[in-house]
């Protein structure tokens, strides 16, 4: 968490300076490419490219490491389930069966293993770009940028308000939970009976919701009083500008995207399997 209580990590890298809407566009194009192919070569290429970009972004290694661990664990679980539920999926895609080992009725095939590796790499290769988007973009700049590319400002500003008040509401929730726990309504390990814990949790939600609604009410009035929603447009203090570099990046990204698209149309492979 930064001093703003958001995920934004303050720094001055190439990506920090990049126009937020461009980052969003690159992320969208990147995701389209990732989902277009089931090709391990492309996924490895994207992952490497992503890692290079990530190294430019000056995001602390600690954050990168943790997120990679989370995604890898998720992938492992996913892999186990695919093996258990559809062990023959690789064969279905390739039409070949190379049995690795079998256990009772299950045949674990090389094809399915390869499919799982491809799939996991596919998910992981999404990660670098997502991280760049999330960690190098200041919420206010993101909001103003979204507004610039045509999203109504009332929707775009929601990002700001959410990021602004999440820590406040968190803090308030914590205080309420503690005060209630002191009163005997706790739902952590203090309370031994599970039924009571659930009941306490249910009881506490009332003041929690109450406080959150209250906060929303106050904030809305404060915004009204300062003229939010007066005109159809608004200007932004944290406005961003397309720089020359941004245009160059835009052209390069679109070019790469078209190249991938062309490759996809030219080679209609559903699943790339080398053997």
């Amino acid at each position, binding site marked *: 968490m930064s001093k703003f209580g958001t995920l934004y990590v303050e720094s001055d890298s190439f990506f920090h300076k990049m126009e937020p809407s461009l980052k969003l566009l690159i992320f969208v194009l990147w995701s389209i490419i990732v989902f277009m192919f089931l090709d391990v070569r492309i996924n490895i290429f994207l992952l490497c490219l992503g890692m290079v970009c990530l190294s430019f972004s000056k995001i602390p290694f600690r954050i990168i490491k943790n997120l990679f661990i989370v995604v890898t664990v998720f992938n492992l679980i996913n892999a186990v389930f695919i093996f258990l539920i559809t062990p023959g999926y690789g064969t279905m895609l390739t039409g070949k069966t190379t049995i690795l080992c079998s256990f009772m009725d299950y045949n674990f095939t090389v094809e399915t293993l390869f499919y799982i590796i491809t799939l996991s790499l596919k998910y992981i290769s999404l990660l670098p770009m997502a991280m760049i988007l999330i960690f190098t973009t200041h919420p206010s700049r993101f909001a103003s940028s979204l507004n610039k590319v045509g999203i109504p400002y009332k929707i775009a500003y929601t990002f700001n308000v959410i990021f602004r008040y999440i820590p406040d509401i968190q803090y308030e929730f914590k205080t309420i939970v503690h005060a209630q726990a002191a009163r005997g309504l706790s739902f952590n390990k203090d309370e031994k009976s599970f039924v009571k814990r659930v009941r306490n949790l249910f009881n506490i939600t009332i003041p929690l919701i109450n406080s959150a609604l209250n906060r929303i009410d106050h904030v809305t009035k404060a915004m009204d009083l*300062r003229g939010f929603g007066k005109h159809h447009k608004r200007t932004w203090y944290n406005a961003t500008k397309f720089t020359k570099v941004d245009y160059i990046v835009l052209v390069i990204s679109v070019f790469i995207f078209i190249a991938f698209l062309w490759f996809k149309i030219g080679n209609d492979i559903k699943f790339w399997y080398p053997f």
Partner: protein
Amino acid sequence: MSKIEFKNFSFRYKNLKEPTLENINLEIKDGEKVLITGQSGSGKSTLVHCINGLIPFAYPGEISGQLLIDGCEPCNENIFEISKKVGTILQDQDSQFIGLSVGEDVAFILENNMMPLSEMRKTVLESLGVVDMQDSIDQSPYELSGGQKQRVSLAGVLSSRSKILLFDEPLANLDPASGKSVIHLIDKLHRKSDKTILIVEHRIEDVLEENIDRVVVVAKGKIIFNGQPCDLLTSDVLHKAGLREPLYIEALKHSGIELTQKHKIDNINNCDDTRIKEGVLNWYQVDQVIKKNNVKSDILSLRNVDFSYQKEKKILKDISFNIRKGEIVSILGNNGAGKSTLSGLIAGILKPDNGEIILNGTMINKWSIKKVGENVGYVMQNPNNMIVKHMLRDEVTLGLKDRSRDPKRLSLKGVLNKRGSVKKGFNPFYSLKLHVGLQLRNMSQKNRDRKKVVHARGIENKYLDIIKTCGLYGFRNWPINSLSYGQKRRAAIASILTLDPKIIILDEPTAGQDYRTYTSFMKFIKELAGLGIAILIITHDIHLALEYSTRSIVLSDGCKIADDTPANVLSEKEIIEKANLKETSLGRLASIVGIEDKNDFIQYFIDFEKGQK
């Protein structure tokens, strides 16, 4: 030319039967600085909402008569047009701070007015300059104190260049020193600009420290006073309206001095008049009252307690003190001094790094929140954050039902399980067992029923007892939502009293409450202390500390810097400065009339007041 004009104005909220404002006639001229005051529920907030446009746009209702703001009728405009004319600085600084950084927040109003970026940056810097906050332009709200947030809000409104500034309880959440500097800043702004300034506040003493042109007192939806501060202070309007007079004025009135307009006593420095001096000195006799040293046993002790959230920075350092039974102790100190952390430690929410917390002779460092909670009650500032049930009875008895149920119930499981095996074949042995078992079950059922009845009756009796103590007996069958804010507070305390706590911690119990509500609430707290419950009050309100606590513990920067009677603490210059407190007007009065022993004078005043009540 008048900026704001009410003519025979009345307003009734849509869901209320009676009008909240009745026949208001009020005129505020261009460039005036006016204090609007009144008890909670007097209609002063409604008046504010009428001026800033929330009425009729956010709160619908029925309006009669006329209201002109800068020559326009609000109901014919929209809220944005009014917000251009009237800049409102809200009471809740956190909700008012919308931007993610100081600069962004100040710019908010400009953004909505579609000001071009280059001009916007310039205006933001200018406005921040007026409130002395230019250096904080890139800071986030989490790095600012309450007073600083207030300044940012002010800059945000200044940037819009609206001619009327409306401060809605600007002192409510600030420590005394920050409050003083905000009032000073408002005054500076008024002198340097041509703005019309309205301050809505019930802490009259603090507002009157700087010059005010006019005071308007609202009571029961009507204006009962509209005139100069010195006229107000010499009359008994404030007393009748249930508001607090400045302490030094009370002292002057106690001394029986006949106050006239001539004295201009709205400025405390004018108390150096010889007649006033003589009067005060006559009233104050230095008589050595033998203090009753009725030392009771300690209920809570802290010994060398340290605490830190992260290892690097200690929030509390080497804190030691004792709390005795039935004592009311106030904990004072600036924002961030560690007051809430300290209460968290005592309530068992936080665990100390070093040191001991001893309750009734037992060390409770490692106890769970729940177990500590059975002994230490924690009452939050906002009662709505504590209330979980619909009916008052359910809310208050919730803890009772939960705790006193007997866990050792006679288990018949073993016997009844055997029942299944009986069917398989006849076995006299089993049938005998079954018979005995069923008998046992019947007996225990009866027993349990009886116990339940006794238990329920016990709960009910206790409920009624507590509800009587809390002055809520008349509401015993009511839903909580129909209680007033002050009554909800009592309900929150009632639900804690059911657990028979030894200590109750009150977090800012009087914030935003007018004198009458406050007095009756504190009287109730005193009664609780009379029952032997120790009360810890965390507060910024020095009047509260002075009048109701027997001892003040002052924190500054995580250290205990004083532990003495409030009168002593509040006449010690060094402590006042370190802990962002403020000298009381009594102390100033004492030095003006030439009394050397200030704290004795303050103590004399408190004792005198106690004697009168």
